[in-house]
């Protein structure tokens, strides 16, 4: 039995023509339902794995219920993805909430490690050591 055959692609290559099902013109792109921005239209650059930590263990009295719940979760560092899961809120709703809270300095964000042009070999080695312990 012979497996089906694929053809390799290269970076920057134009994607192949889409099937008729998905080819419905520019208007057919899906949209996030919660596209919330602050009044200046700024949105914090938050990744799924940006770590969020509360700046103070006690929520201020002015905190909304959502903010108080988030602050309680973030007494220890927690990723945006985990916040989304525990709060049962879509990722985009959590990033909107966090954008306000970062501005108000209720929480701090610890930026993720992302793939770079010059990768950190010692980081990759640390991950390998960590996995070998599992």
């Amino acid at each position, binding site marked *: 039995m*012979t497996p089906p055959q694929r053809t390799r692609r290269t970076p920057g290559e134009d994607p192949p023509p889409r099937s008729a099902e998905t080819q419905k013109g520019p208007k057919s792109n899906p949209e996030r339902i919660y596209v919330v921005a602050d009044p200046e239209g700024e949105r914090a650059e938050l990744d799924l794995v940006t770590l969020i930590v509360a700046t103070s263990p006690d929520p201020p009295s002015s905190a909304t219920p959502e903010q108080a*719940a988030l602050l309680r979760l973030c007494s220890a560092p927690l990723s945006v993805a985990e916040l989304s899961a525990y709060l049962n809120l*879509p990722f985009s709703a959590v990033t909107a909430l966090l954008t306000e809270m970062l501005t108000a300095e209720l929480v701090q964000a610890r930026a993720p490690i992302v*793939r770079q042009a010059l990768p950190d070999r010692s980081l990759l080695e640390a991950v390998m050591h960590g996995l070998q312990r599992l």
Partner: protein
Amino acid sequence: MDFKGSETVPGPRTEDRLPQTAQAAAKIVIVGGFGVGKTTMVGSVSEIRPLTTEETMTQAGIGVDDNFGSASKTATTVAMDFGRIRITEQLVLYLFGTPGQERFWFLWNGLFEGALGAVVLVDTRRLEVSFDVMGRLEERGVPFVVAVNTFPDAPRYPIPELRTALDLPEDVPIVECDVRRRASSRDVLLTLMRFLHSLAMSGSLT
């Protein structure tokens, strides 16, 4: 949104809390077709109970459901399972089991662009399901390894034959695995990390 109120939100179990020293996190994406074993793999290797992050989007024209004729847009929820491994006191690794359809990837900022790399999980009974995913990763310059989840009734191909069928260069690892087993899933992740390390050594990681 159905917010439950602050008193009812269960947080991480005590043993799942990260130390204050946790400075940064990195992510790996596990991508593949429906039912190929992404969720099982995340669950077998994660140190925390796997969690789900959802994103809601409008239905219009995404070709998922047959809501033609309905006047209003319908909200569709796309879910992504993820797990976590503590690497050091400072560093945390997250694993995301991501739907194979590229049209969902934009929902999460930097899901692939920021990932260290990807695991493409394939099922030899439906090999062609993974073709588009691999092409998309190649276009985006995301390094990946291929893990063949060995289902009992699936055809077994020798690795060289699979490499030819998948049109993959010699240096891209292809490994067999049983994602139900933690050691096997871990070995797939180690294969990816060794591959990334070799790319870093040869200076070809972009």
